[in-house]
Structures are given as structure tokens and as C-alpha cells.
């Protein structure tokens, strides 16, 4: 990638100059066939974009349509604020699940974000090109591992170790934090690395010229300069952590209570859908769609906050 892009840049650079005068003078000389091809291409890309938008809209409408009755029946307060999730007794309060999801996400972030930012700093500032050649694909590969494999790894390898060291069964927040911490590394690390690379070289040189050490340059100059990109990266990592399902369902233990210890089983917003969907019916099923709506809204909040932060950067500059 990095080797290819400058060369492409050089090849393309003269192109506008060539086309410029011809374009100005020869607009009428474009053949009808070319014109048609251009229009077709433009519409093809429009269709691509529309499919994505239609997909999101369709899912939102469907989930909303299926899940809305539970809000209407219980009221938003009782559904979101109810502390007992006990479907067979007709109790559909999801506060416990919301709290558990946030706990799982927060812990994963505390472990994963520093690891990811450290990895990004290493890749962008410290590693020699040869080391980078090996490290970067490894980090990218981490993103390609299916989440069920993370879950299996957590269940079969990590959980027994945690059970032996800390007692209990090994299901719980701690196990989930470790797995989520590793899972969000590639998301945050690649975006943070991009942010660090986009810091102009002149700023680094200025810092060194003033006698700053490498550590001082990274800590006092580069990380602050790239901070908005890093915050974006971390928010995307949060989205990944709170939406993660397969890996979590295998190691969380799925007890519908707020755990009194980080080594006790717990159930989250995503895992309740996996656990209950096969047999849920009636209000229970509707409530699961209600949970999906809540997840949808949470991820919308994340996307919106990235937008707001990016905009504030634009104004700041």
C-alpha cells in the first residue's frame, strides 16, 4: 500500500494538466458513447450507495416494526429501566443487560485501547521497516479471525486458566474483557496508525530540532496532534466491543443478573438475543426485537459522536 500510493500519485499528477485544456475547449467533442458510458458508471455507483442505504433503512424499519409493541406495552421506562429479565414470568426489564453490556465494553476498552494505541505508535514511529513488514500483517490478521474462533479460544483455553487462578467456573466479565481487549486491537490500531501518519513530518522534525527525545516527541507532540483521530478510533472500537456477540456468548456464562464479582456469569444485550431467539415467542420475541432496537440506537450514538468530533476538528483548524 504505502509503496504503491506515491507511484500512483506521480502517474496521475500530469493527467489533469493534459486533460485540462482539452476539456475546456473540447467539451462538444466527447462522443455520445463516452457520454453514455460516463452516465451509466455514475448511476452504477449511485445504485451501490443506494443498496447500502436501503439495507440500513430496511433493517431499521423491520426491527422497529417487530420490536415497537414492547415499548408500547410496557412503556419505555419499564422496558429500559426494569431490573428483572425473566421472560417466562413475563418480566422484560433490560436495565441489567444494558449495564452488563456497558461493563463488558468498558473493561475491554480499558485493556484494549492502550494496547492498540501502543501497537500503532510502535508501527508508525518505532518499528524498523523490516519489523513493520511482519507486525502489521499480524495485527491485520487479528481483525480477520472470526469472532466465534475468539470465543472458542476463550472457552477452551482461557476460561479454565482463569478458573484455576481465581476460582469459580471462569465465566464472567474478566474473561470477556481479556478477549474483547484483544479483539478491538486491530480496529483501534489501524485507525490510530493512520492518524499518526497523517501528522506532518515537519512537526516531528521541529520537535527533534528542539532537543526532544523520541519518547517526548511521541507523548507530548504526536499523540496530542493525532488525538481526534485516536478518539474516533476508540469510539469505533467501542462499537465493536458492545456489538460483539458470538465470542461473548461462549464465555460470559449468561446469567441474567448484574454480577457481584468480575468472575461471575452475566448476560448482555447481544447474547440474550442469541440465547433466547431459538425458542422465544409472543412478548418474549417482541422484547428481543426491542433489545435489537436498543443496540441499534447505541451504535447510532457512537456514529453520531464520531461525526460531531470530526466536525469540531474542522472548526478548530
Amino acid at each position, binding site marked *: 500500500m504505502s509503496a504503491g500510493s506515491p507511484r500512483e500519485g506521480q502517474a496521475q499528477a500530469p493527467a489533469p494538466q493534459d486533460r485540462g485544456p482539452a476539456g475546456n475547449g473540447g467539451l462538444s467533442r466527447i462522443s455520445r458513447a463516452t457520454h453514455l458510458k460516463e452516465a451509466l458508471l455514475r448511476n452504477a455507483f449511485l445504485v451501490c450507495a443506494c443498496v447500502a442505504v436501503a439495507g440500513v433503512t430496511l433493517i431499521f424499519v423491520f426491527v422497529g416494526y417487530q420490536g415497537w409493541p414492547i415499548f408500547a406495552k410496557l412503556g419505555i421506562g419499564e422496558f429500559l429501566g426494569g431490573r428483572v429479565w425473566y*421472560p417466562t414470568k413475563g418480566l422484560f426489564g433490560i436495565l441489567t443487560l444494558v449495564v452488563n453490556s456497558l461493563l463488558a465494553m468498558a473493561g475491554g476498552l480499558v485493556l484494549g485501547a492502550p494496547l492498540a494505541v501502543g501497537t500503532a505508535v510502535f508501527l508508525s514511529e518505532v518499528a524498523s521497516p523490516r519489523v513493520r513488514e511482519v507486525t502489521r500483517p499480524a495485527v491485520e490478521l487479528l481483525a480477520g479471525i472470526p469472532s466465534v474462533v475468539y470465543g472458542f479460544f476463550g472457552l477452551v483455553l482461557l476460561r479454565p486458566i482463569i478458573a484455576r487462578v481465581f476460582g469459580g467456573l471462569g465465566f464472567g466479565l474478566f474473561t470477556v474483557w481479556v478477549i474483547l481487549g484483544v479483539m478491538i486491537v486491530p480496529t483501534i490500531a489501524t485507525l490510530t496508525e493512520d492518524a499518526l501518519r497523517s501528522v506532518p513530518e515537519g512537526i516531528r522534525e521541529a520537535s527533534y530540532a528542539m532537543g526532544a527525545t523520541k519518547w517526548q516527541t511521541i507523548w507530548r507532540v504526536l499523540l496530542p496532534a493525532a488525538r481526534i483521530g485516536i478518539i474516533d478510533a476508540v469510539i469505533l472500537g467501542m462499537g465493536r466491543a458492545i456489538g460483539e456477540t458470538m465470542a461473548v456468548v461462549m464465555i460470559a*456464562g449468561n*446469567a441474567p443478573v448484574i454480577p457481584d464479582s468480575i468472575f*461471575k*456469569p452475566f448476560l448482555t444485550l447481544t447474547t440474550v438475543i442469541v440465547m433466547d431467539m431459538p425458542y422465544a415467542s409472543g412478548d418474549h420475541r417482541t422484547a428481543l426485537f426491542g433489545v435489537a432496537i436498543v443496540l441499534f440506537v447505541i451504535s447510532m450514538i457512537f456514529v453520531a459522536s464520531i461525526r460531531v468530533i470530526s466536525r469540531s476538528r474542522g472548526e478548530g483548524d
Partner: protein
Amino acid sequence: MRRRSRVVLLLAGLVALAMTAGCSVGGPAQQKLTVTGSTTILPIAEASADMYQAAHPGTRILVAGVGSSQGIESVSQGTSDIGTSSRELAPEEKKLGLVDTKIALDAIAVIVNPSNPVRALTMQQAAAIFERRITNWSQVGGHDMPIGLVNRDEASGTRDAFSKIVLKGRDFDRTAAVLPGTGQVRAVVTESPGAVGFISLGFVDRGVKAVAIDRIRPTEATVADGTYPISRVLHFFTKGQPKGLAKAYIDFVLSTPVQDAVVRDAGFLPIDKALK
């Protein structure tokens, strides 16, 4: 490669055509049997239906798992020929004129880690453990070690039966780990010294220890003679005495090959021992 597969497809199509033609013209009308009810019994009913259909072309056995109550209701209303049930008939259902054929036994073993010195529990102790009124193994004669509860998900027929027989309908402890399969419960108990769970007796292996309940060890003999308390009988109900295809299918399910292979594979125990 592609051409050959097309030829095969064509041949298959011709054979299928010939078979349907043969049926509609020469052979007898296709016989149909509908079997609905318990999801616990579904694996037995399905596997034996497949075997029966393979051995008797021209028969079609439809099997559906809709729950025991639904099964009893549909057979009494005549919408299905056999209603399968993992529970006995309720008093008002006994007036419906249903004939009971017992087809298998299901026993649930309370399993602990082999390193756990606890060998026996009373029914009350077992219930107290799963309700978390007892939280340490030392309270039931074991080491001073916290009890790690492993429960099944609510879709599980085993959980349903355990809850009815042991807890008498009271609630499981809500902080227990909930795992979506027998294999997972067994694996966790195999690895964790303090864990306790429950699985069908047919799935107990060397990695776990099944404890005695009320001094009765869960074995095929104690289940068959009815002394092991956490067990139940699996039923086929028919409206009146079974006849025709229904009788043939039930006899097939009760035959030794099915009882020894299908029933055991599904984690249950054959009925023939109990009948003798």
C-alpha cells in the same frame, strides 16, 4: 466434469419421474403418519421415522416438535396420529380416550467433578444447591469450596424436567451460569473442581461423576425399576389402540435395533428392560 454432473442430474430426474409414475399408477396410495409433540422425544421420533421410511418406500412420516402439551392436544383432536409427551397425562387429559405406549426412559444425573468427594445428596440437598440455599460443598460433606452452579438454557427439556422433579417448580438460582448444551455443561464440570450440573444419564462419561440421589445411584437398573427419583417416562399417545401405520411405526420404535441404537444415541434408556 460439468457434463457428467448434468447427465447424472438427468438420470436422477428420470428415476424420480419413473418412481412417481409407478406410485400413482401401479403402487398403493402413499401412506401418511403425523407425529407431533415433545421436543425431548424429537430426536428419537425423527431418526426412527427416517429409518422406517427408508425400509418402507411409499410411507411418509411427518415429525414435528411442538411441546408435550401441544402433542397431547393435537392427537386428541385428531390433527395428528401420534402425540409424543415427556410428561404424564394431567387428570382432565385422562378423559380424552388416549392410549399410552411407553417408548423410552429419561433419567437426569446430577454431575460433579471426579475430584469432588461428595458421592451422594438427598433430593432436598440437590434442590437447595440449585436454589443457592447451599453455597459451599462443606455444607453437604465435601471440601470447603464454593459451589459453581451450571444451568441449562430455558429451551432445554432437561432443565424443564429437572425443575419439575427436583425443584418442584421453584426457581433456579439466577446467578448460575447458563450454557446452551449438554456437551458444554459436561465439559465445564469435567474441568472445574467446584462445579455441579445436570445432564441426561445417557450422556454421563468418565470425565464427570454422577452422584447418588436419596442413596440411589443412577444406573440403568435403578432407572428401569423406578427407584432413581430424577427420571421420567417418554410416551407415545394414540387416540384408541394404535392400528395400521401408527401401530407399525410404534412397533418399530420399540424394536431392539431402534431401542439399542437410536434411543441410546439420543441419551435415553431403552424401555424394554422396564417392561420385563
